[in-house]
């Protein structure tokens, strides 16, 4: 049984690393898996159970509910983005104010140009680059490690893959590179515009079970119908509502990459057509 325990613990650790979202949700999924594996071990069928489950990543896709969680609404997405991009917005405003103050012609660009410009000053040379590094690299790393960013955390959102797992670092960073591509690329972050459908609010009795691991706050899960209709959209990652700080009914939205529309997905090779490669 000691060997079994070790096998289960190792498997569960690898399993947990594939999960995204709030710690309580991860604990809940892990507890369910571990209970299943210990029951299998008691029946002398641990090896068979592990074989059926496959890799910890594929097991994580079975036990997480993030894959069927409702998608974040446009409103939630925009508010989260506004908070996350505050440094970049701040630098843009500061650059504009400086132009006005200097009496030069006012040219506003968002994001501001990060190419060196003579006389750009420290704000343009360092400020813009730092703000962009925050918006692309730091937030990308945070998304990959925790499934969230400060803005998304405040709004109770989590970034997950189509199967509800933690998005890989490369995918998170490449997706954020679209920030540099301008408004048409940003539209791709609002999947409602490409045919997203409304999700049903979660039934009120949902939290009655799962007491040890599941918090009493709304987690924003809805039935699978929420995203089944969206399966045809080649997706990259999903932004779901995990309700960490909000109890508003789950809306719908999806952070998707449409390979035909977004060059970043194609360039990274991580659009819907090739997502098996990074699962």
């Amino acid at each position: 049984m000691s060997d079994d325990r070790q096998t289960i613990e190792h498997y569960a650790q690898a399993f947990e690393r594939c999960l995204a979202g709030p710690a309580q949700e991860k604990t809940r999924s892990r507890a369910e898996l571990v209970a299943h594996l210990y029951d299998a071990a008691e029946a002398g069928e641990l090896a068979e159970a592990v074989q059926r489950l496959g890799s910890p990543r594929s097991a994580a896709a079975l036990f997480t509910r993030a894959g069927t969680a409702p998608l974040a609404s446009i409103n939630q997405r925009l508010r989260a983005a506004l908070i996350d991009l505050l440094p970049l917005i701040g630098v843009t405003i500061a650059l504009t104010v400086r132009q006005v103050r200097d009496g030069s012609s006012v040219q506003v660009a968002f994001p501001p140009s990060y190419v060196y410009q003579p006389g750009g000053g420290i704000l343009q040379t360092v400020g813009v680059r730092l703000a962009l590094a925050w918006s692309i690299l730091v937030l990308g790393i945070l998304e990959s490690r925790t499934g969230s960013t400060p803005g998304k955390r405040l709004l109770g959102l989590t970034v997950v893959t189509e199967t509800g797992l933690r998005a890989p670092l490369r995918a998170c960073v490449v997706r954020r590179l679209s920030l540099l591509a301008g408004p048409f690329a940003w539209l791709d972050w609002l999947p409602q515009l490409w045919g997203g459908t409304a999700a049903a609010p979660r039934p009120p009795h949902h939290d009655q079970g799962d007491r040890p691991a599941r918090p009493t706050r709304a987690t924003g899960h809805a039935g699978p119908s929420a995203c089944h209709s969206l399966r045809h959209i080649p997706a990259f990652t999903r932004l779901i509502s995990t309700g960490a700080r909000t109890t508003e009914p789950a809306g719908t939205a999806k952070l998707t990459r449409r390979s035909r529309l977004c060059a970043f997905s194609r360039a990274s090779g991580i659009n819907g057509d090739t997502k098996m490669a990074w699962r």
Partner: protein
Amino acid sequence: MPKQATDEREKAVGSAETARMATLDLLRRELARGTAELAVLSILSSGRRYGYELLRLLQGTGQGLLEIREGTLYPLLHRLEDAGHIIATWQAEGRARPRKYYAITPDGRRHVALLRAEWSGLVNAMQELLTTFGEGQP
């Protein structure tokens, strides 16, 4: 008969048998997927069960005819829970480790009654069809 020819014939028979088993396996999985919801809710109608217990009961039904695995069972349980047909509670009951028990709700009972009626209708219709147009019929 030369040994090589015998080996080749055995190999051909073996691969045909493997292909037949694979087809059968696929068919059973497809059928199990379609009937899993009814099967799970029917078991839970008789009392609460934990995940592994459910799996064993399903796998033991009809000498393993229901090819239901974890990959089908757990997403289904989550879906049924989300839909309000079942509820889950963790209980230790004197054990060191708690287990997650699933129980059917009144809403789930209504749903399973509907599924049963549909299933009976389908079985009767298929039986009628197979009798009328079955093997050996002109």
